[in-house]
């Protein structure tokens, strides 16, 4: 029987974390010092670097601070930055989670704020420990997937195995999210055909066309030198491999970062900003994508890799699925699942998919993933601009 931490808003988490979040780079050092002095893997650091306000980053920050894995939050503000700390604190409070705000300019500076922060975190941890553990169904799980450091093996072993795992989770009415419309360029037609309504299919086509336009303007596709060294040649080749992570379920909706699906099913996340390109690359690095999926409620993330990424994340566990047998041998300490067995002919995609599914349940029950054990808590949040999703994006039909 799976158990989850029951939050006041009714959501259930698989971890019980106290977040310390800084709202501008100027408050980063103080926030980090509070986390370091607290010396507890359940006290984690997130933050936003910029001084200008931004609706997207506020929405993502709200999603993270009211995530089911989060019990309480300490907000660390310098004082003069543009981030709407009052709204963030109100949102957290309204979710029933504990929240404390420290403003460095009003708290006597670095040393005094760190002292106050450490004591605040101590209180937040005491509150967190009182959280009730209740029965949790697989249908209450939300799982995301991304790929990073892909190579020519990713689309053969790891990605289809994650797809197989996703099919099983969706069959049990869990919510699964796949993403990066820029890494699905070339798959738009086949993806649209899997949409639960034709209108949703049109929205999916449009989202990929937007991604192509945006990336073309940036001058680079979502294609890194390591992808080429690993045998991938074109964006559409990488896309076909990446697409396999989605499995074969119908696509139930198209969401944007921070939108939280409520019905079981498979969802595509449109991560490419709306309107004329501004603020630069859609996602500067894999961790930014993980953060967006967590903000949309993912309890954990399945990360497939060929070249070998080692990242984890703050807030939610990351499970690493390695497609390349040579990489697995080289980086075994960082990899949770050896999907290299597929390309070596030692296991089928379905067998590895089952292995991933079982590990998802174990990690949901508290088992530490490799990146958690190693202390990885990467976090990236930058500027973006989105308009809301259209009515066709979340069809009511089942």
């Amino acid at each position, binding site marked *: 029987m799976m158990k989850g931490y029951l939050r006041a808003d009714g959501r259930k988490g698989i971890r019980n974390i106290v977040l310390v979040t800084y709202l501008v780079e100027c408050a980063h050092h103080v926030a980090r010092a509070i986390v370091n002095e607290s010396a507890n893997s359940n006290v984690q650091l997130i933050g936003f670097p910029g001084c200008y306000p931004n609706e997207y980053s506020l929405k993502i920050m709200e999603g993270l601070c009211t995530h089911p894995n989060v019990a309480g939050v300490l907000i660390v503000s310098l004082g003069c930055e543009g981030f709407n700390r009052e709204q963030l604190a109100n949102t957290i409070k309204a979710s029933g989670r504990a929240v404390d705000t420290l403003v460095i300019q009003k708290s006597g500076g670095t040393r005094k704020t760190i002292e106050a922060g450490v004591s605040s975190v101590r209180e937040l941890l005491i509150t967190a420990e009182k959280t009730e553990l209740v029965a949790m169904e697989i249908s209450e799980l939300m799982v995301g997937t991304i790929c990073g450091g892909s190579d020519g093996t990713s689309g053969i072993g790891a990605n289809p195995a994650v797809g197989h795992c996703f099919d099983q989770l969706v069959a049990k009415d869990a919510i699964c999210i796949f993403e990066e419309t820029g890494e699905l360029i070339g798959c738009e037609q086949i993806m649209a055909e899997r949409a639960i309504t034709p209108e949703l299919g049109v929205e999916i086509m449009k989202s990929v066309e937007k991604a192509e336009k945006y990336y073309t303007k940036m001058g680079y596709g979502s294609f890194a030198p390591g992808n*080429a060294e690993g045998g991938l040649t074109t964006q*559409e080749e990488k896309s076909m491999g990446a697409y396999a992570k989605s499995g074969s379920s119908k696509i139930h909706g198209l969401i944007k970062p921070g939108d939280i699906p409520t019905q079981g099913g498979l969802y595509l996340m449109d991560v490419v900003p709306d309107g004329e390109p501004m603020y630069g690359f859609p996602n500067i690095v894999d961790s930014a994508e993980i953060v967006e999926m967590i903000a949309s409620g993912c309890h954990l993330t399945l990360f497939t890799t060929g070249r070998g990424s080692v990242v984890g994340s703050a807030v939610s566990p990351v499970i690493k699925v390695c497609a390349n047998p040579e990489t697995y041998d080289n980086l075994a300490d960082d990899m949770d699942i050896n999907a290299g067995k597929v*390309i070596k002919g030692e296991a089928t995609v379905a067998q590895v998919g089952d292995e991933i599914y079982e590990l998802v349940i174990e990690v949901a029950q508290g088992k530490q993933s490799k990146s958690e054990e190693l202390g990885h808590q990467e976090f990236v949040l930058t500027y973006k601009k989105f308009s809301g999703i259209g009515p066709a994006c979340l069809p009511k039909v089942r």
Partner: protein
Amino acid sequence: MINKHFVLLNKTDNVFVCCKRLLSGCSTTLEDVEVSMTTDITVGHKIARQVIVKGEKIIKYGVSIGSAIEDIAFGEHVHMHNMKSDYIASHTRQSRVGE
């Protein structure tokens, strides 16, 4: 898997994918035809299953993943030097290719 070095992902593909490294000069049998590698082929890379003429689509997973920019011989490495994206240019650490 067609032998221990290469896999055919879809029966309509015109490339094989390497699943075990094969060095330049080594030969292998691809669907009953023996061919010698003209370059090192490492895991994840593609070689031609047949002669592919310039402009022809490269088919992998049963779908197009780009176009040949020159004629490609049977068994030859298929990569950035002889094919390109039909969508958006790829780049390596040294240069942008396929534009």
